[in-house]
């Protein structure tokens, strides 16, 4: 028994496994079960009703509206974040005066919770006294204050921009990690061959950064598509459900309208979407780890080769 314990450190793993299964595993099972029950407003189960909740979801125009906005929200935030973050990372990776300060500023949004950021922006965008209006009026860009959050299309656009802003630090960090691992000699060699900065970016940086870009896309999609605080705090999905994405709609169904069965069905649908992206992420991590091991093996081979060529060189000189 003692030998078994020593060889299989299960007792070290089990507590964490048990906690995760209780808090993360059990709710999934419960949601799956609830999504197939008729549930009263007060959470009482009235019996099995098969796929009725799912049928309800798929007949709901608000669901399709929220789904469509979730797609726009996710694609716009992730794409915007990547387009801004890559140049920023390239700049921050280079040596220039004030780089330390620049890094701190770029990383600042990460240090503050999404809730607080959204609360501050809600006030900064206030239609009457907001300081964004103050700034734009001082600069004579606008003559009258704008009600940024009063109409859905404008509010949603602003929320996407705030979403991009808060995703930049994390994405830039991934890219900085990638950039620091790029081989310097490739750049030096290409400079000798007369490559311009743009050529280097297109033919060296971009291809070599591809794995990091992929990871950044997948992780951002996971984080952004189920991010609630920004939209919830700034507009609560309003006006008139015009900025609702799936998570805000789900939250309203569950905790405002008491549509428990339907909310459970949407949760489960979202869980499967999340699971698909998570699986992609896990596969990417596993592949990266394998690649690392192969790299190590290759390096060892290289060592053997250099030793061999060294030996040959000595022999040649001797001859």
């Amino acid at each position, binding site marked *: 028994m003692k030998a078994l314990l020593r060889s299989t*450190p299960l*007792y070290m793993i089990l507590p964490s496994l048990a906690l995760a299964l209780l808090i993360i595993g059990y709710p999934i099972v419960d949601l799956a079960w609830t999504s197939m029950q008729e549930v009263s407003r007060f959470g009482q189960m009235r019996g099995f009703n098969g796929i009725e909740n799912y049928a309800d979801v798929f007949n709901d125009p608000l669901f399709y509206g929220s789904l469509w906005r979730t797609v726009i929200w996710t694609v716009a935030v992730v794409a915007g974040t990547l387009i801004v973050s890559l140049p920023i990372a390239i700049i921050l990776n280079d040596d220039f005066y004030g780089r330390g300060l620049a890094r701190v500023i770029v990383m600042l949004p990460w240090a503050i*919770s999404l809730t607080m950021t959204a*609360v501050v922006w809600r006030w900064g965008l206030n239609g009457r006294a907001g300081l964004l209006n103050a700034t734009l009026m001082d600069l004579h860009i606008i003559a009258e204050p704008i009600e940024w959050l009063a109409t859905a299309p404008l509010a949603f656009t602003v929320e996407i921009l705030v979403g991009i802003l808060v995703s930049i630090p994390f994405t830039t960090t991934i890219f900085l990690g990638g950039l620091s691992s790029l081989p310097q000699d490739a750049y030096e060699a290409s400079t000798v061959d007369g490559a311009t900065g743009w050529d280097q970016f297109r033919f060296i940086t971009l291809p070599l950064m591809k794995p990091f870009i992929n990871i950044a896309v997948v992780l951002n999609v996971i984080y952004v598509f189920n991010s609630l605080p920004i939209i919830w705090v700034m507009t609560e999905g309003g006006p008139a459900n015009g900025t609702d994405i799936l998570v805000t709609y789900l939250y309203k169904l569950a905790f405002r309208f008491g549509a428990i069965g339907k909310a459970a069905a949407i949760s489960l649908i979202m869980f499967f979407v999340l699971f698909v992206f998570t699986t992609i*992420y896990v596969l990417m991590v596993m592949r990266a780890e394998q690649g690392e091991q192969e790299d190590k093996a290759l390096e060892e081979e290289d060592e053997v080769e250099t030793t061999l060529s060294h030996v040959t060189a000595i022999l040649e000189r001797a001859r």
Partner: protein
Amino acid sequence: MNKLKKSIIYWVLLSPLAVVILFPFGVMFVTAFRPRDELFVYPPTWTFSRFVWGNFVEMWSKTNFGGALVNSLYVSVAATVIALVFSIPAAYALSRHRFAGKGLYRQFLLVTQMMSPIVLVLGLFRLMVQMGLVNNLNSLVITYAAFYMAFTIWMLQSYFNTIPKDLEEAAWIDGATHFTSLVKVFLPLAVPAMVVTAIFTFINSWNEFVLALTMIRSSDQYTLPVQIYSQVAGRYQVEWHHVMAATVLATVPVAIVFSWLQRYLIRGMALGAVK
């Protein structure tokens, strides 16, 4: 291109982003010190007549900021301690042992790390109802510990891997048992890693919103993010100078610590240990 010229170009390129990033901080400070009757002036302006430090005192006494601060501290410290107590042995096992199902366990961790509370929030709420923990801060302690555990295990494991095995082996040769070598040799070396991981878990718990909004029903149990949100949401008149004063107090200390430690996050992120 010399360095000075390059620096100027880079700062010009970065400046629009820097302005947008710093804008909310400006809003926060300018409003927190503003006299109440200058909140809604037309045309809106950045300037104001005098600094009102009293906003902070007034906010503290009128909005139960102190209570929410204590709640947030309790939840974040307890969640961090529990997460670490569960993570340290697991991370040690991953770093030092080979065992059946190790790959599977690592995949399980990656999946739980990506699980977001919002997708499970309804199921979690029903679980807490059954456990009788609704409106109890301990519901948050357990859930935060469970959700951030995957992150702490990844972080700790990547640090543990950098601690040479030779030291423990030397202790074994000197007759120490596995347990004593763990407690007397390994853990002291791992203290910096544990501190950094603990701080990140603390900050994550400190900032969490969705679960706190859901599980906590009465205002005397609110954590800071929910307490501040409740002063803004669904109110006809929002005391913005109080809200911004509260935001300054709740975020600035954490932001300073985070900015200081952020380089460790980059290091520990090597394998999926993010956010």
